[in-house]
């Protein structure tokens, strides 16, 4: 039974991206959910489902929904970070399909810079080491970069991928961020800027790494039938997969090739669901926790041959004006870090044709497609988008959407 096109994302909302929100994750979540409800043209009483994800660093649905006068028929607070966005879209569809509720708000709220630092410094670094962490943390392998670098280095060994090639991911995303009033880092950078920035954990330079950010984000899922009457042009969900894993998720290095990522398995589920191939996709949102993560996923999902990701991301294809731009908001490298939510929000706006760039009437759908700095970031005739969500090398999610 296919659910293709039966569900839509009808509302999106986010707070400011900052490095010091000065307020609680509850306050930010309430703002983001409210904005998404208003964006959709819904009322609080229309929302009866809520999903959120967090890692002990946020406010849960039972404390967010009542603030807005929402009475829930279904909610779930999920443990997790990256790759949760797409997975929760699928869960929302399932909950509605099962008759548990009708409209679901999905949010993520985090003070990822000022409170629980995503990079692992501060309170996170001081936590006792127990359980499976004993296999790596005592060896000074604690942060996301330290966790993933073995995979990135092995990819360089296996395929000859270079630092300069993957630096193009940051270059492209910085170009996109220069068109985004919300972005934390709006300055365009060069390949030389990236490879000359200081080392963090080789092979990652500082500019290969994403930002730490305070923000909340929200997307609203409902049936295509309900979406028809709402304020925005509906964006249809063609296919979704959530938290697809490589074998041995507990210690994924046991099952190689370690330069392979979860998209290897996910692609065989999602493309048949959507009934398309990578060639049909106009814009991608490949999770850029690091430059390498974008590259690895694009190649694993088949946007180029396995091993040719370095050549693909440095070809200009992923830049605005290229054949298939990636992370047109600037992504986690430049706009701000949201554990994946902002990349889905951006693609929803791309498919609506209402990206919030510097075009005076951009939010009304009037765009110049002038990609010089400080102007437009709307992709012309964006019809199908694909999000490639990342949690770690062996764990990912994906979402294919189309405009109506």
């Amino acid at each position, binding site marked *: 039974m296919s659910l293709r096109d039966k569900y839509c994302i009808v509302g999106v909302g986010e707070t400011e991206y900052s490095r010091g929100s000065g307020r609680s994750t509850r306050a930010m979540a309430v703002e983001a959910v409210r904005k998404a409800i208003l964006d959709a043209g819904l009322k609080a009483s229309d929302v009866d489902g809520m999903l959120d994800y967090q890692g002990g660093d946020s406010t849960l649905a039972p404390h967010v929904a009542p603030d807005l006068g929402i009475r829930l028929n279904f909610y779930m607070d999920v443990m997790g970070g990256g790759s949760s966005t797409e997975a929760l879209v699928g869960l929302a569809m399932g909950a509605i399909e099962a008759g548990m509720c009708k409209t679901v708000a999905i949010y993520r709220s985090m003070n990822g810079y000022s409170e629980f630092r995503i990079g*692992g410094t501060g309170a996170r670094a001081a936590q006792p*080491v127990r359980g499976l962490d*004993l296999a790596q943390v005592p060896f000074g392998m604690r942060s996301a970069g330290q966790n993933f670098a073995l995979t990135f*280095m092995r990819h360089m060994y296996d395929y000859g991928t270079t630092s300069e090639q993957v630096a193009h991911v940051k270059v492209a995303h910085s170009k996109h961020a220069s068109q985004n009033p919300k972005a934390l880092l709006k300055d365009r950078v060069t390949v030389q800027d990236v490879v000359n920035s*200081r080392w963090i*954990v080789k092979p990652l330079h500082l500019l290969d790494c994403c930002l730490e950010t305070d923000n909340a984000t929200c997307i609203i899922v409902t049936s295509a039938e309900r979406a028809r009457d709402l304020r925005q042009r509906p964006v249809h969900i063609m296919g979704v997969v959530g938290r697809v894993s490589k074998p041995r998720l*507990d210690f994924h290095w046991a099952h190689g090739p370690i330069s392979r990522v979860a998209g290897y398995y996910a692609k065989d589920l999602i493309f048949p669901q959507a009934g398309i191939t990578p060639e049909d996709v106009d814009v991608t949102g490949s999770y850029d926790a690091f430059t390498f993560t974008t590259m690895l996923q694009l190649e694993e999902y088949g946007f180029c041959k396995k091993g040719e990701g370095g050549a693909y991301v440095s070809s200009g294809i992923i830049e605005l004006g290229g054949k298939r731009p990636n992370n047109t908001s600037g992504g986690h490298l430049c706009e701000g870090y949201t554990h994946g939510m902002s990349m889905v929000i951006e693609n929803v706006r791309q498919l609506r044709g209402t990206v919030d760039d510097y075009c005076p009437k951009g939010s009304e759908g009037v765009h110049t497609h002038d990609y010089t700095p400080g102007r437009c970031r709307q992709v012309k005739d964006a019809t199908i988008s694909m999000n490639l969500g990342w949690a770690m090398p062996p764990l990912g999610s994906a979402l294919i959407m189309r405009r109506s």
Partner: protein
Amino acid sequence: MPQPVTYRGMSLVIPDNDSEWNEYFALARRHTLMVRACTACGLMRYPPTHACPWCMDLGWKWQEVSGKGTIHSYEIVMHAIQPGFREITPYAVVLVELDEQAGQPTPDEALRIVANLVKPDFTPEAEAKVAIGARVRVAFQDLSDEFALPQFTLTDEAPVGRVWRLGG
């Protein structure tokens, strides 16, 4: 075992009911590298787990391995996250593929262990000597009377396959 073990500012905690790790680090303190082996199909696994990932049997026994292997991948930490590592930064984290059971039961699988590449005095090995393909052997870093970390040091054996290092 007496808890916790303190190392580089970290508390390493192994509760008495932690049936995964309790014996592993104590066996390492006796300077033996032991992994769990399935008593049904014989395949070894790491980290310690409670069922065989290939045949699902619950039976297992500790089995000693030689501690010799090859660097499968590595990273050089230039900016320490944990405060206790700042004084030894830069340091190498290596993924060591042990000689036993490499490429079994499928070509992509192996017994692989994360550790630091260290000199015999357990200070970090020089970055210029770290490479994929380099041969290594286990060295036990004693942290208490009942706990040791299995680390790895370079050997003078010929490397395996293509030798590669970043920028090399």
